[in-house]
């Protein structure tokens, strides 16, 4: 049995704001961060969850080779006083080698490569001289950047399992701490807008021409967003009154199809059940499920089957992608942080943008925001390749 871990600080930057307070306010006000696509390099009829002013973010002098949209966004996500202070305290207390850094991303700084390919030498085909592959493009680049920015020297890796990436980092951190390889871990996820994902999901006909409508009868695809999120995990709450506990996680594979979920949500159900088992909680003790809820026909239907098979049709659930868009490799951390806000403030968000609930869905999709005590939340993240992860959070008091 793994020891539960405590989340003692978080940082978040998404289309609905900077930090927990702005994120919470947007959830309460039901103001979506989605807007018609105005991303320079893309000409598609869709909506995006874009973070303003990433282009203006300056990286530290010593890390100029890491300059790319994804690392700029990572730095914006780190810039929270409480998070930075807590990480530096942990560094002092445990040592730079005793803090793990586990980051999730699906495309890292691939935009830099896309732009480099647009600027290949017309005669030789060479990439521009100022293109830095290792520091921007590769999936490890964001983890490397975070380690260097914070002066951390311990175990580090990038998890890249598409849209479950930054949920799975919580499981990785839990195992590394329980195995004694580190005393604390900074986990997170960063994915930023790029042509590969916008045109790629579009080629699969999975991108909506409207703001995404999870669980809606007429839903027709995702809205792609970008975000950075971080959480510091420690073995004790360390006097932090706002700390949350990671009580369980579940990971599974669909073994069905590369880009379509299992129709009955078998893998998703396994992941949720495993999280409950690890937390030694009964399904009835979960007060809210933050759905993966991408607003594709197949995801929402499969996830609904999975939820109903594990929880029945009463547990309140909703997707918050109507606010942030689908932030892909960052979705896990973004929705983990939203789940913690829901526990802290007794909030069950409505399924934003859902006009006409799909009658084929059996789960208790919440259409009107509710304020009530929330003890335990499950957050779902599923990715291409049939990769599933469910996280179970509670308050320290629970």
């Amino acid at each position, binding site marked *: 049995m*793994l020891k539960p871990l405590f989340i003692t600080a978080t940082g978040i930057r998404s289309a609905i704001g900077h930090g927990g307070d702005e994120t919470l306010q947007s959830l309460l006000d039901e103001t979506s961060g989605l807007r018609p696509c105005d991303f320079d390099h893309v000409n598609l009829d869709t909506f995006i969850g874009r973070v303003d002013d990433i282009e203006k973010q300056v990286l530290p002098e010593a890390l100029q080779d890491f300059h790319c949209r994804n690392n700029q966004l990572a730095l914006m996500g780190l810039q929270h006083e409480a998070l930075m202070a807590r990480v530096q305290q942990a560094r002092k207390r445990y040592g*730079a*080698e005793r803090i793990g850094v586990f980051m999730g991303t*699906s495309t890292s700084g*691939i935009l830099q*490569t*896309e732009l480099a*390919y647009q600027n*290949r030498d017309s005669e030789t*085909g*060479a*990439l521009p001289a100022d293109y830095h*592959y*290792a520091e921007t493009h*590769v*999936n*490890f680049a964001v*983890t*490397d950047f975070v*380690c260097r920015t914070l002066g*951390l*020297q*311990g*175990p*580090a*890796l*990038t*998890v*890249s*399992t*598409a849209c479950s990436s930054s949920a*799975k980092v919580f499981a*990785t951190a839990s*195992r*590394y701490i*329980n*195995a004694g*390889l580190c005393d604390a871990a900074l986990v997170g996820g960063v994915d930023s807008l790029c*042509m*590969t994902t916008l*045109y*790629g999901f579009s*080629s*699969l*006909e999975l991108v909506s021409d409207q703001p995404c409508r999870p669980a809606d009868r007429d839903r027709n695809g995702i809205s792609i967003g970008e975000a950075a999120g971080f959480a510091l995990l420690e073995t004790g709450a360390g006097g932090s009154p706002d700390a949350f506990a990671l009580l369980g996680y579940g*990971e*599974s*594979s*669909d*073994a*069905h*199809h*590369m*880009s379509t979920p299992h129709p009955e949500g078998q893998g998703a159900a*396994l992941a949720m059940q495993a999280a409950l088992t690890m937390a030694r909680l009964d399904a009835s003790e979960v007060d809210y499920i933050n759905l993966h809820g991408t607003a594709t026909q197949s995801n929402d239907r499969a996830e609904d089957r999975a939820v109903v098979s594990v929880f029945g049709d009463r547990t309140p659930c909703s997707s918050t992608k109507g606010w942030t868009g689908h932030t892909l490799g960052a979705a896990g951390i973004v929705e983990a942080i939203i789940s913690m806000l829901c526990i802290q403030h007794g909030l069950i968000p409505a399924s934003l943008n859902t006009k006409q609930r799909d009658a084929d869905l059996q789960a208790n999709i919440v259409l009107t925001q509710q304020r009530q005590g929330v003890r335990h939340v499950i957050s779902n993240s599923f*990715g*291409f*390749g*049939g*990769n599933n992860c469910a996280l179970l959070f509670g308050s320290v008091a629970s």
Partner: protein
Amino acid sequence: MIRVYVESIGLMAPGLQGWTDSKAVLTGATTYNGQALPRLSPTYLPPTERRRASTSVRLAVQVAQEALEASTRDAADLATVFASSDGDTEIIHNLCTSLATEEKLISPTRFHNSVHNAPAGYWHIAAGSPASSNSICAWDQSFAVGLMDAAVQVSTEQRSVMLCAYDMVVPEPLNKVRCTSIPFATAIILSAQKPAQGLAELRLSLKATDNDVSKVNIVELDNLVSKNPMARALPLLSRIAGKDPGHVLLQSTGSQKLCIEVDRP
């Protein structure tokens, strides 16, 4: 310190085609010849998937299949860790080439094959395995970090885990910034309990030390390290092949090195 047992190994690289046939090369009993790999077509993938799968996926599945067949494990309950430094650079190259055109038309299959966990997805579909699967990277340290990630899962969750570490050749023009010029892949099945017929016992720890990382004492094999980051597995594979107890030190992340004490099973 984390103790795990090596049940079986798969290996594929020029001149190292299959674990069983490579043992003599790895111990220096036979001379390394560097013979290029044929087109890989692992039978573990159903024919339709085999056609759709990229060269990276086929390389990864080839070694995974070899390790699985040499073990007593059922693929359906084997958790996996797939490690790759660069992912599928051939697909990245194709996508970025298309995205540099006016039309920006990209193939949907190519797009879903571009995710870092594509080999894991293909493997679990072929295996019908609902077990958990991680896909990781850590630049040149991806083998060492992948091995540790798999061992951590074995020890904390008391289950068998297959590590599949692979990197395919990087195409033009990306090979100017990442010179991976040969394919290299190895799969290692690890378990918590001593298997009836295992290959080695490993005890892993992370250490901050100035000691040099291990090298293979066969110059032709040592040369492979500069041609593919996954060839950093060779000092460990060589020691296991030679049933030669001792230490292997590999560079890990930050200021740490991965220390592996290798023992006979």
